[in-house]
């Protein structure tokens, strides 16, 4: 079967990051998929070798603007392992609070984007309006809405006052009330159920063999959460439940993320109530000891891994970052491939793609290759969405 490229460049209104999806189709069903992630390659691992450990923190936080707190915490924990010093417990609790706040903002963002993908604009506006409460708290505590650089090597940048802790608890009450409303909507609204149940199916066996992480693997019944299996900061002291679902589809992912929001709220309340006294930062020398360190953190999208090799100089010899979306690409491929009785329609591609919460999203151009007719063309996710609404997907 011969194919050829017809590139067109489209925009996707919700969330960006250019990624090329190459789909092989037979009629309206998708039979194969490959990815091209070269649009996002910025050479960060090489850049990190040219900066000192302390200079590397702003760069690492900007690997992903939405999971920036997870990257920051992972980086600082990783570099601190190269020193032989104890980090104050108060700093670990504060890091946990910011990390969970960041998870709340990321999950609310995703709920809005997922609602947008299935045409539910009102829910998009509602969730993003509620997210603003969380952004206000992030700004009050850290000084910035996103890319906060709150976690520093040696502790955190600022302390939290009693008054601010009180405001944070009030914000958590608002978030909890709104999240319960969204869970109710997700479980009772028939359009959501119809558009998400049975779509983007990922069996438990596939989830394990493709080594996927995060809410994807948890919505396929596997109990894997780095906060429970490899605890960091204060996660071994702050209790929480690992939320799983057995439905293995997009609906399961909606429910898992919405319920994780409630867990985050409980963790923040516990952390504030049991916040230990003491310093929030210690001063560490410029040069760490020679050695290596591996740190894993549960970012909103899944397991995030940082590895460093130091030769005792100011700059790292090697710094490796593995983001959760890279681990989930194999799962995405399994979800988008029709197998036996499981059939993937072109119209389901945007919501399935959105359900992995890609930190490489959009300007997503989907490249189709019709294996039976030997033709290829490119549509934007927008076009797929519009066509599927009008029932005009066959070409």
């Amino acid at each position, binding site marked *: 079967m011969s194919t050829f490229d017809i590139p067109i460049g489209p925009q996707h209104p919700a969330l960006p990051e250019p990624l090329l999806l190459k789909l092989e189709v037979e009629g309206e069903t998708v039979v194969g998929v*490959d990815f*091209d*992630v*070269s649009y996002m*390659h910025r*050479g960060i*691992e*090489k*850049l990190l070798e*040219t900066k000192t450990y302390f200079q590397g923190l702003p760069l690492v936080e900007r690997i992903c603007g939405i999971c920036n707190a997870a990257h920051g915490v992972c980086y600082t924990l990783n570099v601190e392992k190269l020193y032989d010093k104890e980090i104050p417990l108060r700093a670990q609790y504060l890091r946990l609070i910011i990390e969970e706040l960041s998870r709340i903002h990321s999950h609310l963002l995703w709920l809005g984007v997922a609602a947008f993908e299935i045409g539910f604009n009102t829910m998009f506006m509602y969730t993003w309006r509620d997210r603003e409460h969380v952004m206000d708290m992030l700004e009050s505590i850290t000084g910035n809405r996103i890319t906060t650089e709150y976690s520093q090597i040696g502790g955190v940048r600022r302390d939290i006052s009693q008054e601010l802790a009180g405001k944070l608890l009030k914000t958590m009450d608002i978030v909890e009330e709104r999240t319960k409303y969204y869970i109710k909507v997700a479980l009772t609204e028939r359009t959501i159920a119809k558009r998400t149940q049975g779509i983007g199916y990922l069996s438990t066996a596939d989830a*394990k*063999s*493709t*080594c*996927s992480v995060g809410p994807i693997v948890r919505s396929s019944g596997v109990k*894997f959460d780095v906060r429970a*299996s*490899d605890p960091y900061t204060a996660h071994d002291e702050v209790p929480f439940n690992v939320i799983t679902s057995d439905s293995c589809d997009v609906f399961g992912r909606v429910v898992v993320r919405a319920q994780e929001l409630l867990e985050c709220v409980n963790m923040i309340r516990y952390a504030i109530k049991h916040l230990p006294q003491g310093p929030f930062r210690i001063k560490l020398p410029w040069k760490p000891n020679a050695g*290596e360190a*591996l740190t*894993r953190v549960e970012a909103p999208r899944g*397991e995030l*891994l940082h*590895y460093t*090799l130091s030769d005792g100089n100011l700059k790292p*010899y*090697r710094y*490796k970052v*593995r983001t959760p979306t*890279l*681990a989930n*690409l*194999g799962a995405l491929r399994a979800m988008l491939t029709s197998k036996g009785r499981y059939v993937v329609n072109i119209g389901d591609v945007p919501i399935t793609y959105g359900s992995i919460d890609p930190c490489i999203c959009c300007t997503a151009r989907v490249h189709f290759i019709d294996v039976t007719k030997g033709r290829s063309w490119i549509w934007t996710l927008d076009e797929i969405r519009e066509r599927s609404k009008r029932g005009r997907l066959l070409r």
Partner: protein
Amino acid sequence: MSSEEEIFNELKGVFGEKLIDHKVQKRRVYIRVFNDAYKDVIRYLVNNKGIYHLETITATELKDGIEIMAHLGMDTSISIRTTISKEEPKIPSICDIIVGAEFYEREIHDLLGVTFEGHPNPIRFVLPDDWPEGVHPLKKSFETKHNAPLREGVE
């Protein structure tokens, strides 16, 4: 004896002299093996110990070769490392044991030029289409020019 030491001792019992050295930290085990034992040790961990989660594969260019390290495990991270030569950077792919290794091996192939024998789809992954062949950015010999950003026609 900690559980990390137990893991190493079990592998030592099975593979004996093929393991060169090891290092143990809290929930971390680093084991250095010979090239020919790399795939066998991983296969043992997957088939006999039920460790199916591959975290990632890291590759570092050292003075005497390129070090490939596969990190496996959900709670304790077991890192199996081996060093291959820079002149002939080849190592068997583990995609037939763990399906999820595909993208990690493609990334290392792009950035450091390592060939994974038996890889199902060894095409370009992270580098742009017009990137010159044979130039691997993560090698120490590749230097980004200070304050000289990409310009037309100049590499």
